[in-house]
């Protein structure tokens, strides 16, 4: 197991600039990731289309959220050395010196135990078991092993982020049928093109931190190729719920139209030179921005304005941003259809 020689909290902490606030501990739980996990977990719970007491449903979603937050805290403890070297992550509470690494680890362990035990006792032990597996997979298999070892880190590690719909479904029904795993498969196949698009324009950061992301190990060209291959597999899988009695007509329309846009953007990335040169716009605030149409070539450079993205970096940024929107739209469609009571399609009887 690839473990740092010295515990992160010992070596990569700077002098605290201020006392830690409760918000800093909340940041350890990666609230942005938690919100996506809550959304997909809730969709799994509602898409099961069975009755569950509203309070128990809320407790299940809360446990999924806290479990995800716990694994985030464990990740921030272990990866503090990496986080300190990357622009995107160096402001996190542990590398910023606001919270001790040991406190982050303790928070992660306590919240893991509480969320799994509460989910098991209040809902059922299948859901609790899946949540425990998710936490261990993310914190141990992905964070401590895969991330520092192989370029396939986010492919295999993506399973942890993909499981919440199955946990939600299991919480509602006590079982996890094929349709629950189809939702898992959608997120699992979404992860590689999503993260590789991001890594194409911040690969210098990953290289500096020694993280073997695909562009760092295999190069930008191979990454662009892999993005296209995974996208070609991903989109048909996104259409599948309309054939298995999970999604209805709204879902079919969203997945079909969005899928065309996704494939177009993936094709543009494939044809571009994204990642061949470092993008000067790799500031934190630019990560989630979508590129508008190219500015007129005659536009004079303005001092203080951010530099334009290099080469195909804007194609990678566009795919990264759209991938978030697409996943959100897919699950929003499933959620809306289940809540309204739209009959699911079953094109393959």
């Amino acid at each position, binding site marked *: 197991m690839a473990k740092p020689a010295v515990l992160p909290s010992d070596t990569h902490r700077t002098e605290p600039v201020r006392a830690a606030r409760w918000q800093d501990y909340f940041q350890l739980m990666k609230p942005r990731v938690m919100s996506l996990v809550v959304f997909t977990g809730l969709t799994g719970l509602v898409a099961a289309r069975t009755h569950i*007491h509203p*309070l128990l449903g809320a407790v299940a979603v809360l446990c999924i959220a806290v479990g995800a937050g716990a694994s985030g805290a464990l990740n921030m403890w272990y990866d503090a050395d990496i986080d300190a070297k990357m622009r995107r992550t160096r402001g996190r509470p542990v590398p910023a010196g606001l919270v001790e690494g040991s406190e982050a680890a303790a928070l992660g362990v306590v919240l893991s135990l509480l969320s799994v035990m509460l989910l098991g006792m209040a809902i059922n032990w299948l859901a609790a078991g899946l949540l425990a597996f998710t936490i261990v997979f993310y914190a141990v298999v992905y964070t401590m092993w895969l991330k520092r070892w192989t370029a396939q880190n986010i492919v295999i590690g993506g399973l942890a982020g993909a499981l919440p719909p199955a946990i939600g479904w299991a919480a509602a029904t006590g079982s996890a049928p094929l349709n629950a795993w189809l939702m898992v498969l959608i997120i699992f196949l979404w992860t590689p093109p999503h993260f590789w698009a991001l890594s194409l324009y911040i690969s210098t950061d990953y290289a500096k931190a020694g993280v073997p992301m695909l562009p760092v190990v295999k190069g930008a060209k191979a990454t662009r190729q892999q993005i296209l291959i995974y996208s070609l597999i991903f989109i048909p899988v996104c259409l599948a719920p309309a054939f298995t009695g999970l999604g209805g007509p709204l879902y079919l329309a969203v997945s079909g139209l969005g899928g065309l846009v996704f494939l177009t953007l993936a094709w543009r990335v494939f044809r571009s030179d994204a990642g061949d040169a470092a993008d000067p716009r790799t500031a934190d605030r630019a990560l989630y921005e979508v590129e508008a149409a190219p500015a007129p070539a005659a536009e004079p450079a303005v001092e203080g304005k951010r530099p334009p993205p290099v080469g195909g970096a804007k194609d990678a940024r566009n795919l990264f941003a759209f991938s978030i929107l697409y996943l959100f739209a897919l699950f929003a469609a499933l959620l809306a259809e289940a809540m309204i009571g739209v009959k699911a399609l079953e094109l393959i009887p």
Partner: protein
Amino acid sequence: MTDPKKTVSVQPDKADAIKARNGRNIALAVGLVAFVVLVFVVTLVRLGANVGNRF
């Protein structure tokens, strides 16, 4: 001689640290109380459906 009550002052950074600590304590207390209430209410809901069946 100066009045000791008037000379007692808290340095700005120390005041910030105390304020941050109070905030952390309150957040922890709220979290613990919420957890206890949650377990209590979940118990009521889980028992509610089953207690009636025993009689």
